[in-house]
């Protein structure tokens, strides 16, 4: 317990005596963590954007109004057996009418026109959900060639171009982000290694005397590993303190942009706080400790 206290004391002395070096080291770690969190945010936004567009992909087959239901269900089952189709939803004439009324409940003119007509003018339809949205082009081509006497018309409002573009941008952002993170990780390793090396240089006289008077090896190197732990802890705490206010500022803009969709990045970070920042702390800690261990082994000769 006494040794533990002294190790912490010597570790804190290292940090205080090399205050500027500590600031630089923590700044580099902060930049690395900030880039990781930015990448997580970009990923979340793009996932939400892709999800929103996917919802707008509409593949529907409109059927002749007088088709008997058994024929519709047979076609539905035939389509559902395709491996490109996730599910097929049958919307009957009545359901289509109900949906129409609900959609235009505030538009009295349209409702009056419908009433004037005196009958249900809508057709039954089959709404098709693709198994893989990125492969929806192939499915659309297949459906275009589908031969069935009960099909009246086909609606393929295609958003796959936009979807592909978002997927491609997300992929590119991820690639660049990972490259930036890799650079920051390597830089962090070198900076922490150098910080510990300088700390050891500052304490070279003490280390020499420690070795001379029989200090245990762990007593010589643990203060430096403790310093590395403090670097990791401070950098993660600061990134949390900086990132949450930034997310709070960003959130209202995202809500406007994704109007009608439930996009809440702030609550995602709050809900997954332990996972996101715990993992980051562990990674930074491992990087710091590895760099420190190399520096101590080389320069403190323990």
């Amino acid at each position, binding site marked *: 317990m*006494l040794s533990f206290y002294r190790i912490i004391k010597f570790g804190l002395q290292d940090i205080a005596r090399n205050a500027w070096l500590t600031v630089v080291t923590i700044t580099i770690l902060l930049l690395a963590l900030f880039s990781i969190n930015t990448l997580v945010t970009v990923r979340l936004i793009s996932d939400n954007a892709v999800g929103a567009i996917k919802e707008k992909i509409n593949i529907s087959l409109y059927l002749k109004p007088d088709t008997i239901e058994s024929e519709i269900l047979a076609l539905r089952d035939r389509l559902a057996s395709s491996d490109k189709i996730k599910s097929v939803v049958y919307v009957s004439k009545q359901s289509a009418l109900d949906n129409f009324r609900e959609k235009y409940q505030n538009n009295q003119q349209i409702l009056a026109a419908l009433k004037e007509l005196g009958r249900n003018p809508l057709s039954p339809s089959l709404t098709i959900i693709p198994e893989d949205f990125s492969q929806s082009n192939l499915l659309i081509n297949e459906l275009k060639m589908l031969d069935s006497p009960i099909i009246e018309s086909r609606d393929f409002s295609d958003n796959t171009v936009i979807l592909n573009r978002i997927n491609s941008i997300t992929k590119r952002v991820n690639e660049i982000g990972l490259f930036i993170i890799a650079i920051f990780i390597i830089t962090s390793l070198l900076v922490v290694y150098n910080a510990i090396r300088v700390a050891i240089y500052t304490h070279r006289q003490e280390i020499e005397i420690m*070795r*001379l008077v029989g200090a245990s090896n762990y*007593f010589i190197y643990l203060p430096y590993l403790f310093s590395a732990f403090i670097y990791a802890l401070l950098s993660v705490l600061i990134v949390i303190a900086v990132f949450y206010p930034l997310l709070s500022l960003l959130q209202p803009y995202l809500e406007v942009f994704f109007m009608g969709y439930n996009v809440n990045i702030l609550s995602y970070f709050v809900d997954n706080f332990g996972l996101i920042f715990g993992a980051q702390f562990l990674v930074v800690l491992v990087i710091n400790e590895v760099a420190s261990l190399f520096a101590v082994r080389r320069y403190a000769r323990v």
Partner: protein
Amino acid sequence: MINLQNVSKSYSHKIKVLRQVNLTIAPGEFVSIVGQSGAGKTTLVRLLIGEERADEGRVIIGDWDITKISRHEVPFLRRQIGVIFQDFKLLPKKTLEENIAFALQVSGGSQAKIKKIVPSVLKIVGLEDKGRRYPHEISGGEQQRAAIARALVHQPKILLADEPTGNLDAINANEIVDLLLRINKFGTTIILVTHNKEIVNRLNRRVISMDHGQITSDQAHGKYLL
């Protein structure tokens, strides 16, 4: 007892700093090791404190063969052997008390032990009234005495003094040697590595002369022959 059996050490293929050295030092002896620069005296000291490993032969301290000592065992060896150097190796930003306490702190000594031992070793070296001074506030001789006090905190059986009077004038040098003699009287083995002819001749104790990595003479009551 210290026993070196056919010990050789080289730093490169061409430079052999110790050649087949055989040496026995009994407990409680006061031995001076003399020789010119490059004779191998300092390498001998470094072998004894586990700083260097012998290429050949065995180095035995007490019942302990330290030839193949692991790095985890080195701290335990160092607590058995006090060492002082020409440059004192005191920490300038710590008082004498703190310098001495530091040796106990880093080897896990309790606060109670530190409170008990620090004043007693300061008293042994005659610095009991200067414990709160910083190294730059005292003379070179007093700094070396403080270094000796620090070397004594683990109550070592052996005290290695590598050129302890090298930075001191004649009066201070004699005071240090007198102090080493007093410590020797308590039963501590003293190994004094020195260039100082007057001191060696005044001591009239065992003198081991070294030249080119070999022991050239070993006299029970010797003089500085080189």
